[in-house]
Every structure is written in C-alpha cells, then in structure tokens.
C-alpha cells in the first residue's frame, strides 16, 4: 500500500488541512516533511493513505486549501512526485 505526502507551506496550514480532512472522516497525520523533499529546508506535510488520497484532494479543494507538491512512497521505495 502506498502512502501519499501532501506538502504544506507551514505547520499551521498543515494543521488546518488535517482538521478539514479529519472532519471529513479521513485519517491523516501531520508531520515534518522529509529533508529531501523540502526545497527551502524545514517543511510540513500531511500523510494520507492511498485508499483515501483522491477523496482527500477533493476535500482540500472544497475548503480552498491548495496543496503543495505531492509525493508517494511504497515500502522500500523512494519518494516519487505525483503530477496532477
């Protein structure tokens, strides 16, 4: 099962996105972004499962919470950017 990382511009923004997703019944985790994925150094992301990923994007769009870059990763794999 893949996990998706939705990059957020700030911790507060990631927390807002997480609240919107949790309220929609989508379990997510807010985390510091992996070092190799942050252009500016020190960033935040929300982690969502593959099963709820597309639904999560719709929720974020509905609440006008634009996503940053999105990456996916499976067990033992490197992060791959997901193009939208």
């Amino acid at each position, binding site marked *: 099962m893949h996990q998706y990382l939705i990059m957020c511009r700030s911790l507060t923004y990631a927390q807002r996105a997480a*609240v919107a997703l949790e309220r929609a019944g989508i379990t997510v985790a807010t985390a510091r972004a992996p070092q190799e994925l942050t252009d500016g150094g020190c960033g935040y992301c929300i982690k969502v499962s593959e099963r709820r990923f597309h639904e999560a994007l719709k929720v974020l769009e509905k609440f006008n919470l634009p996503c940053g870059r999105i990456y996916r990763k499976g067990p033992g794999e490197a992060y791959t950017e997901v193009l939208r």
Partner: protein
Amino acid sequence: MIYLDSAATSLLKPSEVHSAVLDAMKTMASPGRGSHAPAEKAAETAFECRCLLADLFHVPEPEQVVFTMNATHGLNIAILSMIKPGDRVVVSGYEHNAVMRPLQLAGAQVDVAASPLFDAEAAVEAFAKRIPGAAAVVCNHVSNVFGFILPIDAIAALCREHGVPLIIDASQSAGVIGIDFTSLGARFMAMPGHKGLMGPQGTGVLICSGQVRPLMAGGTGSNSRSADMPDFLPDRLEAGTHNITGIAGLMAGAKYIKRLGTVRIEEYERKLMGLMRDALSKIPGLTVYAAQNPEMQTGVLSVKHEKHGCEAVAEALGARGVAVRAGMHCAPSAHESAGTLAEGTVRFSFSPFNTQAEVSTAAAITNRILKTL
C-alpha cells in the same frame, strides 16, 4: 487582598489557567521544532489556541492569529510595518503609550481626533474630519484609564469608506466586549493575553489581514534554507521559540471567556463599576469619572481627590489590602483629554472574579482613608 487592578493584569484567573501552564511546562517542547511527542503536543496546543481565538474574534483563518509577547509587541509590529516617516496617522484622544511611542519611533505625523470624555458622537465627528487622506488610523477600543468605549464600529466604517487602514488596540476590550474583526474590516488588531483573556503575563495576540513586515527575524522551523523570513503567516511574525507555556495558559483563559460569554462578563463588570461609582460619588472632594450612559463604560473607573494625590491614595489603599493603580497609567493622552494630566487618577478596575461585597468593602476603605490621610 481585594484586587481591583485587572485593567493592568488579571491576577485573578480561572484555575484551569494555572493547570494548563504547569502541564505545558512539564509536557511540551516547541511547536514545529521536532517530530517527537512533546513538540507535537506543543504544535497541537498552538494550533488549537489559534483556532479558538479566531473563533472568538471572528477571524476567517487561524494563520491570521499571531502570537506576540503582549499588546505592545503587536502594536509595534503593526505600526512599524505600515507607517513611514511623515505619514499622517489619526489617533483618538485616549491612546496608550503602546500606540503613541511606536508612532513617534516610526516618525509619524500624529493627528489627534480629540473629543471630550464619554462623548462618542464627538469622537466620531473628530475622526470623520481627519480620516480622509490619512495614511492610517490607530484607535483604542476602550480607554485603559476611564473605561470609555470608543465608537469603534463607526470609526471602522469611516476607515472603510475612505480606504484608510485601521489598527485597533483591543487591550481593554478583548475578552470583555464581543469583537467581530471581519465586520470591522481592520488591518490589524492587537491585544494582550494577560488582561481580559485571562492568560499569563508575556502573552499577546496580533490579528492580521494582508501582508506585514516582520519586526524580528529568526528561526521559524519553516523554509530554513532561506535567509528571508517566510512570506506566510503566522511564521512571518513568529521568529524564535514560542512561549508555549503562556500560549497553553492563554488557551485555557480564552476557553473560560468563551464559556462565560463576553455579554455576561461586560454586564457583570459594569455592574461592579456602577456599585463603586455610586459609593464613591458620595465622598466629598472626590471627582468620579463616570459616563452618564453606563453603556459607554466598561468595568474601569477613575477618580481624583481635590486634596490628596493619587499615588498617596493608592499607597494607602494598598496598605489596607486594596490593590489599585494610580498615576498616568501610561496614557498621558487620555489624561490630557479628560483634564487630569497634572495629577493623574486612581483607577479601580474589575474582573469576573470580584464580588459585590469586595466592591462595598473597597469603597468603605477608600472613604475612611480619604478622611484620615
């Protein structure tokens, strides 16, 4: 002790505030500075507090709620971010030095919309004359000396009409009077955490709309490779480690305010002020600064004796267990407007934790002191 100095600091706080501060000190690190549980708990607390305050003041997004050290810090950010040397800035005749000194520092041309004490209509007229063409308006919501509620809705409407940005000093109104930041359309609103919001000293909030220039630069736990401060709120204005123990206490205080409701708080404090006003008005030689229409005054009451100096009266009250504040209250502009600049006043200020019995006792002690001083 009868504590009647809540306009300075709300010493009497809900017990939840004490517990929250202690719990934060034991269990929280710094928001956004790690993936471990203490950092995450701190991040959750900071976010929850932002959301709560955004809800309390009708702010659309929690990012607009910036944590500061106090209201003065927030006002410095707002004023120094917006005002250039020579800008004409309109202020009320009741401003605190937390407004006047940053304006002086910024090199502003201060244009005082002077008006008599407790005359809201005159205040609106004075602002209406000066707002067109001004670079900004900075206005106290409630005078810290007299409890005079400035007509902020009308002043904000004038600012919107003329496209002049408004900075509100909500130091005496936050947590006491309901405020709708979005409806007012203000650019900034600054408030302390340690007065009406019942938080600990060293906490404050600046509510922002739009872009702002940082007053301080430093680590934010975001965009760390960049030499510039992040261009997004709240990170843009929150350099350095947060006062998370203070923020946790502030959140507990704000929850208490939300539970009680500002309508009840405002009514209760006004009732206590009315009791004190009525009792002190009977004392010969004492001038009591009270509004004819009590709706124009919060739970803050200033008095002046014809013979005894305000510091001597406050010292005598303190010696008998009544805590009040005397002097200029860091607001010479307000004293100038009320004609008390030379002597200052003794200020009684109330909180939801004061009782009517305390007010009666304090009034009786004041009466005795003024007879024997």
